[in-house]
């Protein structure tokens, strides 16, 4: 099994994992200081008869230091995080050339509306698939999430992307795949008894493979009225 994050397959991967590692290092240092400190103090200052503890109500200088350092660190972390946050989820973050995908989600199924050869959603050549999403490699994709009944959440671990789909709201999320292959989409928000069964797959194609897939979809045998 993997003891680490899943492999990266989107442009968000390096940023999020980098931030994760940065936080892991910072918190790791704090963790070591606290845990080692606790054990060390516990051993070093264990009670011995006839001895009295050092009588002090505190050392202001020390307190200022351990207030200031965490404060500066977390504010810096916040600023760095915000930079990426705006890039990933900001209102204007969706790249203009992103391929639109309509996602209609209900208990307990995903329905992905792909634009047909014309590249537009909402036209007659749209391709609707149950629990299958087909996208292009290295092309930004924007999913327009619409929930029919309850809250669901669109989650692709390898893409490091997650977004709730809330009934009554139109929410978009974008990502850009950087590796071909097949990945799993999960529902990350409790949506009822079939929550665990909301597994879907996303296929990342090279342009040629994507074209082939689209041609295959256009053949009449698969057409649905």
């Amino acid at each position, binding site marked *: 099994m993997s003891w680490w994050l899943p492999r990266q397959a989107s442009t968000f991967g390096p940023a999020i994992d980098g931030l*994760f590692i940065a936080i892991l290092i910072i918190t790791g240092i704090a963790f070591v200081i606290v845990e080692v400190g606790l054990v060390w103090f516990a051993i070093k200052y264990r009670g011995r008869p006839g001895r009295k503890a050092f009588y002090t109500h505190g050392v202001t200088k*020390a307190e200022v230091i*351990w207030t200031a350092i*965490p404060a500066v660190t977390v504010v810096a972390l916040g600023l760095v995080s915000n930079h990426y*946050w705006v890039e990933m989820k900001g209102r204007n973050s969706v790249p203009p050339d992103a391929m639109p995908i309509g996602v209609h989600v209900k208990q307990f199924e995903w329905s992905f509306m792909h634009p047909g050869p014309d590249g537009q959603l909402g036209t007659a050549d749209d391709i609707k698939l149950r629990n299958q999403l087909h996208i292009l490699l290295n092309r930004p994709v924007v999913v327009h999430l619409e929930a029919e009944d309850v809250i669901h959440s669109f989650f692709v671990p390898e893409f*490091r992307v*997650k977004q*709730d789909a809330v*009934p009554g709201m139109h929410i978009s999320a974008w990502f850009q795949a950087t590796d071909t292959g097949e990945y799993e989409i999960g529902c990350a928000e409790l949506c009822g008894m079939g929550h665990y069964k909301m*597994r879907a797959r996303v296929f990342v194609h090279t342009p040629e493979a994507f074209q082939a897939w689209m041609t295959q979809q256009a053949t009449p045998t698969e057409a649905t009225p």
Partner: protein
Amino acid sequence: MTSVAAHAPAHGVHHGPTSFWRKYIFSTDHKIIGIQFLFVSLFFLLVGGLLAMQIRWQLGFPGKPMPGGGILPESMTAGGVILPEYYITLVTMHGTFMVFFAIMPLLVGVYANFLIPLKVGAHDMAFPRINMASFWLALTAGLIMFAGFFVPEGAARAGWTMYAPLSARPDLSGSNIGQKLWCLSIIFLGLSSILGSLNYITTVINNRAPGMTWFRMPLSVWALFITAILGLLALPVLSGAAIMLLFDQTLGTHFFDPAAGGQALLWQHLFWFFGHPEVYILILPAMGMVSDIIANGSRKPIFGYHSMVFAIVGIAFLGWMVWGHHMFMSGMNPMLGSTFMVSTMLIAVPSAIKVFNWMGTMWRGNIRFHVPMLNAIGFVGMFAIGGLSGVFMAATPVDMFIHDTYFIVAHLHYVLFGGSLFALFGAITYWYPKMFGKVMNERWGKIHFWLTMVFYNLVFFPMHIIGMGGQMRRLYDPTIYTFLKPQQPMNEFISICAFILFAVQIIFALNFLLNLKWGKKAPQNPWEDNGLEWTLPNPAPHGNWERPPNVYRGPYEFASPQVPEDYLPQTRKLPTDREPAAAGTGH
């Protein structure tokens, strides 16, 4: 109320013998009410634990018949196999019972009740009868919640956070009466908490013994006082939200129904506006009591008393501004996400202050490793992990990945179990003599602590790893996902450790129960502490003091050079001490 006028001077006089019912059941004595809360919430802790065991069975061994599952009705299991809808019920009710009926009443119901009057030197709560009502309302709420298991379709099934619209529509959740009982129970619980809180607040403000100035109050009282303010202001919001949810389910209103213009996110905003202060309700009292225990165990004054107080106030204040960090992925305005991220990051600062100050307290101490101290040190170590893992979620981009995964489950259990519950093991052992006049067994207490510490970490630390692997919360069967299948051995390992962890708690239960009757008689001040409560006999009589004691100093005067012993009780008058102003002729 003229009778009050007549009796007022004699208020402290010990009440005569009363009937069993008045003394133990419909008691207005804050200590008895605290003990009632203790037994009731320990029962619900057991219920929550049993639910957790079933969750772990399903996660460790998905689709296999659960041992003993056959006795559960058809609506829960099929041939012993847990059904998906029952699994959702399990996670919902485990969260609900643990948060609302175990940890919260254990910390607030038990210790705010038991400790505040004893530690500030009051005869009782300001409003003893309201206090009694608060207990009975809480019990009613718990029983209503418990009744959910026995109605058709079973208890609520929408997660303990009850996200609408799943919770609002029985056709979508599959549970009808259970959902309504949940709302009803929460409304009762809210009322109970408000009545409790107003009692605690009034008592702390107005009923402190002479000389017990604000900054001579023990940190436990400070924490419980601030917690009471949080509860007072947060619970009405939850009650209001639960009322609206109940109306959506019964009267056909449309608060959370998007089809008629209602808003699904409104529930989340209301819930977390309550919910984040609630998170601090669940940890601040633990922090306060741990502060008391660590100072006592280190035989040294608490390090930075004032900054500890300000940290409590700071956490409580910031706690109102961070609720949105539960909703980063909910589709709310990303600008709000940035704001909430900064406020969330800032709340790490007072938490860090507290951890370092506890370490500072141990520094150059003369540490006595009694069972409460062990648990308190365990609390600091585990709370630090829980606090640090919180930084990951606070960073919004990282939260995009780990939101609603097992990383969160690990984080919240490090705070709630590693934090609050360890503090409670310590607190129960520490104030057991005061409650029952007996002491708990030291050796078994230590065995329980070490076993719990080991297995607790074996259960919850791996959850970070499977969360990093991407396992979502509340999945009935994670093996359905190819990318989660390799993690299944880890899930199995966690489950086995969880069963052992549960079994280890039997030691604590026996240590607690058997010593009620067969325990060693407690000395007057078993921990050689400075607190006011230890000047009273164990257990203390109804009314506590003949007249409130005079207080001459803060609660943490350990190792004081003024006296040869290493502790100096708050009530002990040294030749240099002046009588407190309030004790004199009055205003």
